[in-house]
């Protein structure tokens, strides 16, 4: 079938047929939204325009339900916080300066639903999409990460979803040559049927190379480059395909097209090198990645950001499928494509660079004077719109917000205090081994062994560390550290505090590695915004996060909202994943995780411990219990703690450190011992008079550090001066964790066996 056989619903035709029924509801538009489009255009939209508006006004692209809340991030960001920010919310990704003329850009994005439908491709294209966002800032991507959430480890569907998602993250990222340096693997029943695949990417650039989406300069050319455009990912829009137009439920092949996209990491790798060469040669005025909403998004956003109009000719777009309608070309989510604005005199040079990299590049239009986005197909005008109405002036909703008092009060009343606890030393000892093997605490090696953490040769710390540490400038040793975290059970118990605890943990993880926390990104995974109780969780989490950032002085530079994460009417646990990025002046001062120093180093616990078990891993794993209140969060303390850790690291005063979070001090000791390869003798009596509390409470603001014996006094004095509680609880050495008669001795071998067996036992060995 050739293009000319596809009937075109042109603007002229639309004017002539004002009453023609249009399937706007199937496209997800509400009656009033459709009415508004007709009002903007003064006529009915063409199929192509309808496709553009419907996808750009979708929750995913327009943030229509979250906008009113996200504004709060801007309102709470002070000028001082802004001082290091070169680009913030609204750009493809936030950019912060890290000194020496270097800047870094980073962002987390969700690809949850596609990864449930087709785990491998869904996860793979999730990584591909966030990497293009980073490229669109003019940066070289330098690392990726993958916060993941799944249903119960033993659930059947987890056996389908997890291996596919992990293989997809690895398959794409490894082939792209980006080290995977951070992430999470969390299991909870609420994610069964709705796994969370959040992908993180970090990029580095010289401050002067910052590029923003921008299409100004009448006569400048619009160049589409990268992969060809096909039918993948157009899902719903195919109700507009003419041959199925009459039967909304019809069943032609194309109608049944799944909205999955298939990734080609090889093409993206070449696209990265091609883009960087184009930037270096100064051939790019503006650039935009093609992600969700494909050309609809790229053309309308480029045009809106510019000072002129834009004309695009769809006949020039290289297609990989025959008979694509204008609506389909505009909505296609084919991967590995970018769109650039180039001055006429540079077009030849631009195309030459693309030829060198075997990258298809085509001039598809130009910037015009005037203020309209005009798109033609087969010689007819199929789109003629004010671009801002598509890209930025979509609907905005203030959805009802209501705390579910009954449910929330019951949750908070269900205190974990009454849960039966281990008491005798042998019971406590057994509990430590059981927790070490818990799905949420066991070794992640089954996952991380499938990810390349070495490529590019700049990875200083990755899997098993508290944060991923990557060298940015080899000549100075300047680098960045990044960590993502979220204990969604805390958020469920108290969304405001829970979000601050997620922020505090990621912030602490970065400082624990010896870096100074600088900026925040987030990926807000929630249920349906049409449910007032979900909107309450969302609003509370946003406020908690923003207020927390104000106290810590770390701005939210960007992020992503993912709504409608639910199975049936049951929403997932509210999961605002928080990513924190820090700078480290000299990566050789980065502190290794765990007991990495010499035998005889002093083991020091920073921060205080209280009987806090609400939302704890122990309550979840041992009793399947979720109730009470989350641990208290003290952000001023977190700030002092981070300053102490970063300063001590810079002076090389620490031989090792590890954040305490899920599983409490018990799990922290296990990970520190196994990670650093040294045992320790520890006296728990000073931590808390109740041994069980000392071991399993999840009080925030705690870090385990080791210091050389001769440096102990100086360090304790330093902690005292910083106002951070510090207690020597033991010393490293031997091949066992010796917790005294209160608990007994656990050999590193038996700990390792329990800790490492869980995931391989479920999914099979990664190697032979």
């Amino acid at each position, binding site marked *: 079938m050739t293009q000319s056989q596809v009937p075109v619903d042109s603007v002229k035709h639309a004017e002539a047929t004002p009453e023609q029924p249009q399937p706007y509801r199937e496209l997800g538009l509400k009656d009033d939204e459709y009415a508004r489009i007709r009002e903007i255009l003064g006529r009915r939209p063409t199929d192509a325009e309808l496709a553009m508006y419907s996808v750009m006004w979708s929750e995913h692209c327009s943030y229509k339900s979250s906008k009113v809340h996200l504004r709060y991030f801007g309102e709470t960001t002070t000028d001082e916080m802004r001082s290091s920010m070169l680009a913030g919310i609204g750009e493809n990704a936030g950019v912060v300066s890290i000194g020496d003329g270097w800047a870094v850009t980073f962002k987390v994005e969700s690809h949850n639903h596609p990864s449930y439908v087709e785990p491998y491709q869904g996860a793979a294209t999730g990584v591909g999409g966030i990497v293009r966002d980073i490229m669109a800032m003019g940066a070289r991507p330098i690392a990726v990460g993958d916060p993941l959430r799944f249903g119960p480890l033993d659930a059947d569907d987890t056996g389908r979803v997890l291996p596919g998602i992990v293989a997809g993250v690895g398959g794409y990222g490894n082939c792209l040559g980006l080290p995977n340096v951070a992430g999470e693997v969390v299991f909870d029943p609420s994610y069964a049927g709705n796994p969370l695949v959040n992908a993180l990417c970090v990029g580095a650039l010289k401050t002067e190379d910052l590029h923003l989406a921008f299409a100004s300069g009448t006569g400048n050319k619009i160049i589409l480059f990268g992969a060809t455009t096909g039918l993948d990912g157009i899902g719903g829009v195919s109700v507009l395909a003419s041959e199925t137009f009459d039967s909304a439920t019809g069943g032609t092949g194309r109608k049944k097209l799944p909205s999955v996209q298939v990734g080609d990491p090889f093409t993206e790798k070449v696209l990265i090198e091609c883009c960087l060469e184009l930037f270096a040669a100064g051939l790019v005025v503006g650039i935009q990645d093609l992600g969700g909403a494909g050309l609809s998004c790229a053309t309308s956003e480029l045009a809106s950001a510019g000072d002129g109009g834009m004309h695009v000719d769809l006949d020039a777009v290289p297609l990989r499928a025959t008979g694509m309608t204008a609506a389909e070309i505009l909505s296609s989510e084919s991967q590995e494509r970018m769109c650039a604005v180039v001055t006429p005199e540079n077009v030849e040079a631009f195309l030459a660079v693309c030829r060198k990299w075997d990258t298809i590049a085509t001039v598809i239009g130009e910037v015009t004077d005037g203020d309209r986005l005009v798109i033609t197909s087969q010689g007819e005008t199929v789109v003629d719109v004010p671009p801002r109405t598509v890209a930025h002036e979509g609907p905005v909703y203030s959805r009802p917000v209501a705390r579910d008092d009954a449910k929330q009060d019951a949750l908070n009343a269900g205190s974990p205090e009454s849960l039966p606890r281990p008491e005798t030393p042998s019971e406590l000892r057994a509990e430590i081994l059981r927790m070490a093997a818990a799905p949420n605490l066991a070794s992640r090696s089954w996952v991380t062994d499938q990810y390349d953490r*070495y490529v590019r*040769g700049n990875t200083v710390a990755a899997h098993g560390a508290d944060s991923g540490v990557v060298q940015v400038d080899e000549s100075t040793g300047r680098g960045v550290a990044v960590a993502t975290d979220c204990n969604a059970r805390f958020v469920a118990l108290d969304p405001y505090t829970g979000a601050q605890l997620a922020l505090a943990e990621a912030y602490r993880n970065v400082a624990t590695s010896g870096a100074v926390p600088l900026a925040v990104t987030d990926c807000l995974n929630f249920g349906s915004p049409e449910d007032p109780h979900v909107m309450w969780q969302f609003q509370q989490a946003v406020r908690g996060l923003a207020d927390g950032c104000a106290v810590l002085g770390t701005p939210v530079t960007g992020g992503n909202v993912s709504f409608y994460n639910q199975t049936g009417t049951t929403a997932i646990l509210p999961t605002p994943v928080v990513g924190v990025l820090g700078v480290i002046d000299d990566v050789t001062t980065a502190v290794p995780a765990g007991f990495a120093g010499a035998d005889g180093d002093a083991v020091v616990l920073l921060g205080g411990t209280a009987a806090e078990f609400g939302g704890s891993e122990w309550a979840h794993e041992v009793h399947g219990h979720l109730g009470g209140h989350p641990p208290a969060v003290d952000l001023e303390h977190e700030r002092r703690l981070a300053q102490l850790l970063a300063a001590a690291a810079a002076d090389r005063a620490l031989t090792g450190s590890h954040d305490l979070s899920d599983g409490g001090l018990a799990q922290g000791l296990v990970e520190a011992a196994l990670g650093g390869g040294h045992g320790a003798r520890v006296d728990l009596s000073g931590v808390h008079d109740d041994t069980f509390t000392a071991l399993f409470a999840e009080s925030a603001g705690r870090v385990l550090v080791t210091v050389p014996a001769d440096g102990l006094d100086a360090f304790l004095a330093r902690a005292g001066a910083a106002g951070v509680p510090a207690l020597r609880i033991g010393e490293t050495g031997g091949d066992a964790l010796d917790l005294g008669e209160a608990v007994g001795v656990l050999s590193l071998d038996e700990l390792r066996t329990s800790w490492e067996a869980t995931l391989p036992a479920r999914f099979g060995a990664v190697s*032979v």
Partner: protein
Amino acid sequence: MSTRVGVITFPGTLDDGDAARAVRRAGAEAVPLWHGDHDLQGVDAVVVPGGFSYGDYLRAGAIAALAPIMTEVVAGAGRGLPVLGICNGFQILCEAHLLPGALVANAGMHFLCRDLVLTVENAQTAWTRDYAAGDQLLIPLKSQEGRYVADAATLDELDGDGRVVFRYRDGGPNGSTRDIAGITNAAGNVVGLMPHPEHATSALTGPSADGLGLFTSVLARVTA
């Protein structure tokens, strides 16, 4: 004047920057070579680095082996030019028939990234003369198709002539035949291995600096 070591970049090559860095750390000059050129720029040795050239489509290394630059590498190897293939580079050298056998999917059927210990079995090659036979090197392995296979006759010949250069000390986690991690050609100037010595040239960004010896070995040779 210092030794000049070429590092080839194909579309999809990933570890070229790291290979060049390793060459510099060894005290040589790294010379970028482009897959589409027919010119080795008079280098004294060539590294075919790791990655996913052409996305590993068809077979790992199959399409890259046909690149113009490889015609020159094959000719150079025939004249005794030292050539080192790392990971995807090893696969490319096998596909180009500079080395016998082939590399197929890991027995575990997963991409595998892990630090492991190699035993140096042949310290006579152009790339291993700075080691002693029996040396043990801690080096990362990161590959999807790292299982070395060849017919029995070839394997016996490799073993008989001492052409197995590296073996996995604790057994090949990818199911590699006879735990073979790296081999050499009869002349000893062409070496291929699956693990990544270029990622073990500094304890800061790798598990050790044990891999540097490969890059200094070739130095010693061409300046000798």
